[in-house]
């Protein structure tokens, strides 16, 4: 399930990550004396825990908009993802 406890306890193989995250991940893993997979799982679990309601709402809203074929509603549902994308773009503009 998409639940933090499940993630932490039942998966044995590492979740794949971006190659460019590799060095940072290694450093964090050493610092916390954990495996790389444990670090990734913990990060995902923390994110899911902190955003569970928001993500569940987005999931349900998207399903309902698709079921109704309501494009305007579907576009509005993506509002949640808008700011994150803008943030990501701005982070890559030279300061």
């Amino acid at each position, binding site marked *: 399930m998409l639940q933090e406890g499940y993630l932490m306890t039942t998966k044995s193989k590492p979740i*794949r*990550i971006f190659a460019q995250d590799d060095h940072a991940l290694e450093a964090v893993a050493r610092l916390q004396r954990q495996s790389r997979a444990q670090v990734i799982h913990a990060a995902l679990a923390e994110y899911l825990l902190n955003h569970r309601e928001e993500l569940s709402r*987005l999931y*349900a809203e998207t399903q309902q908009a698709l079921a109704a074929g309501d*494009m305007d509603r579907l576009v509005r549902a993506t509002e949640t993802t808008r700011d994150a994308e803008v943030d990501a773009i701005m982070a890559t503009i030279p300061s």
Partner: protein
Amino acid sequence: MAYTVPTTPAEPAWTLSATCRCLTEDLGLAPEACQRPIADLTGAHQVIADFVKKRGEYPIGNETIKALLPRVVAYALHSGRFRAATWHHEAAGIVWLLAARWHEQGRADDAYPYFEHLLRTGQLLPTRTDAARVVDQRRPTFAHALYLDVPRMRRWALDHPGNIQEGVIGGRVRVRVAFENGTDGLLYVAITRRLLPGTLPLPLAWDIQVLAAFFPGLPLEDIDYIDHIAGHALANDEVGYCGLVQRDGEAGFPTADAQT
């Protein structure tokens, strides 16, 4: 064996856009023009027409603007006596028209010193509002693709158990999908963690929307993380999900009541 199906509609490999400052201050357009796609403004100024034509064909030019290096690798665009500065913002998959001005070498108000002045004073590069405008223009494409492409990919996977199908939803999110027709009937969705076009990481909320489209009627809590796709390894930048789906595949979309 993997199959690739064309998906439509889709974002192009790079998006053309202009900073609002450039459109209004350099090219004299009304502020309302900033809200329109740049392709709709080609009749408003020759610089825009040349930008759309040339950078639409290839995202960079032949001549870097040395005064802006090393901070920004911008390219000069020649448009009659005008010179424009364009920047291929690779991470975001955007080619920006940053500035434009009349070019007359040796004059104080020549284009190139002007570009340098804009950079030095923090006016050259795109603002948050500029970035948000591009994001807003891309959003409907992705929404339509969720509605049009995902059911087709899902149907194909259900009709071809054991085969992996690849696609790029709306030109934004690369996915692979497969159905394993065991007693339980598992639908696998592997999502590449990059937001296309460009190289930005894919926010988790995008996964959630893709999953909502692939698993109509299935609660989010019933979707699992998985480290393979139908027994095949994930790519290094993929995350795998799976959920139980009946072979007929059409459990039906949930009603509003069922979701609340």
